[in-house]
């Protein structure tokens, strides 16, 4: 550890913290003001009257409450699907010496490299031809699959480090491969699974592109879409409720981060390998 000189480091840190946090704080105060106040007030002033009504407008008129629920409806089962499938594949890749293992690993690694946006035209074409627009199950499966390559990468790496002696004694005790995976190996792989899970959750929860092209029913919009269309309708005519909408979509993410701080940070540095 390098010893840094105290005062300059504090000055630097405080300036940096202001640059990173102040825009959010300003948006929060703006979310409680009306247009007149936003335009006329100094940039550091508190609201004259705290207009919590702006939040009611965002929740009800912009359907942000519904959108937050939708984002969870996509993200929780999508993450679960991704993790179960990835665990099964990682188990094969790390436990069985098959001739096709190398090929399989590279086959899934392609998913780490190919930008998922390049798939939007063929996917929208197939989904359109099958009349599957506006389907929760379809979205959940797609999201789950798109998160698989990274999860497989993280979980296989971790699973390889778990002693194979465990398997042998379990098999001698008459434990089949599937029970072995889910009852013995999977719990031991939890650190990697939860890292992959957090990453997938954030990715799906915040998705923009798939919601744009595959969902047209407003009641199925996730947070990104609901916010985009709310801002599109309001423009600058109602800045307060717009900022309220922005704050509402930001808060659940911050809560999840603060709850799982260590996992999120570990996840992002591990996820770096993907992007």
């Amino acid at each position, binding site marked *: 550890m390098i010893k840094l000189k105290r005062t300059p480091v504090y000055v630097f840190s405080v300036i940096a913290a202001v640059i990173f946090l102040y825009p959010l704080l300003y948006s929060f105060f703006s979310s409680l003001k009306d247009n007149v106040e936003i335009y006329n007030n100094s940039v550091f002033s508190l609201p004259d009257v705290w207009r919590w009504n702006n939040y009611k407008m965002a929740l009800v008129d912009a359907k942000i409450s519904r959108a937050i629920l939708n984002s969870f409806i996509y993200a929780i089962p999508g993450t679960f699907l991704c993790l179960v499938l990835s665990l099964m594949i990682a188990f094969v890749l790390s436990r069985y010496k098959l001739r096709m293992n190398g090929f399989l690993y590279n086959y899934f690694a*392609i998913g780490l490299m190919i930008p998922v946006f390049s798939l939007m035209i*063929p996917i929208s074409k197939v989904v359109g031809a099958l009349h599957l627009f506006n389907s929760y199950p379809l979205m959940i499966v797609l999201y789950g699959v798109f998160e698989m390559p990274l999860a497989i990468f993280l979980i296989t790496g971790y699973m390889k480090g778990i002693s194979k002696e465990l398997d042998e004694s379990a098999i001698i005790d008459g434990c089949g491969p599937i029970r072995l995976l889910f009852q013995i190996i999977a719990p031991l792989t939890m650190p990697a699974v939860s890292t992959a899970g957090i990453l997938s959750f954030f990715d799906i929860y915040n998705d923009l592109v798939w919601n744009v092209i595959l969902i047209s029913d407003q009641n199925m919009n996730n*947070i990104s879409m609901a916010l985009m269309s709310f801002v599109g309708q309001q423009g600058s005519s109602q800045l307060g409720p717009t900022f309220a909408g922005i704050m509402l979509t930001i808060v659940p993410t*911050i809560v999840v981060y603060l709850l799982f701080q260590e996992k999120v940070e570990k996840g992002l*540095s591990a996820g770096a390998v993907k992007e």
Partner: protein
Amino acid sequence: MNKRKAYGAIAILLLPGLLLYTIAFIYPAIQTVYQSFFDWNGIFNVPLTFDGINNYKEMLDNPNFYRSLKNVGLFIAASFVLILPIALSLALVVTSRMRGKRFFKVAFFIPSILPLTSVGLMWQFLLKSDGLVNKLLEMFGLSSLTHDWLGEPALAIYTVVVVNAWIYCGQNMIIFASGLVAIPDEIYEAASLDGANSFHKLKHITLPLMKEIFKVFAVLAVTQSIRVFGQIYVITGGGPNGATDVPTTLLYNEAFKFNNFGVGNSIGTFMIVAALVVTVLMNFLTSSRSRAKKKGVQA
């Protein structure tokens, strides 16, 4: 283990994921390449018509395509001249012994976990001619520096690049911090005994030992820049006049705005090939160098 039984189990474990991944990921990727040689207007029961390499010609004739490549170049450049030094400095701060470092870590990191759409829209409002940024400039007597940050074609892409740095510095800080923590304290202590000051330690211990992390950062910077989408789509939509277009927004606009699905697919193919080439090339470069280093150690 009974061989036949094991094969059954392998099939049960492997097939569902393999099948879904092939259908939802690999098949569309192949279709992107295949359909890039066809014309299609986006109506589902109208068949594709073979069009040779015309989509590629159209892609290469579009001046916005070159601008989109230049813009990706700007994102890559900004990763090295803007994000890298800031993120590394932040990482040095949060891994130091200073008081309050936990608070600072959270503060620096928060932007990179927020929904891209939400912070994108937030910045859209803060950067308007009557938004926060210009108000601050006026307050500090810098009215001459105020701009329509997202409305001026020559300026807009730089504005978005800086907002992008605001978003991702924290994430890169975490990556650098994980590298810094891995350097054993004993090395620094030994250096102190030899009379090294902080700058010497940074130059001769920290930076050399962070080599692997810098490689990760480099791969990240390039591949992440190729896939930039949300930032542009939300903040400027590629405007004004295509000034902030990147390949992904170009693909989206060609296909879903102008119904040029063929050209969209040729841009998609270009992105797939570029991403594969860059990843393979960078893996090759970084692994051959570390192989050479290992050899050097043995010799």
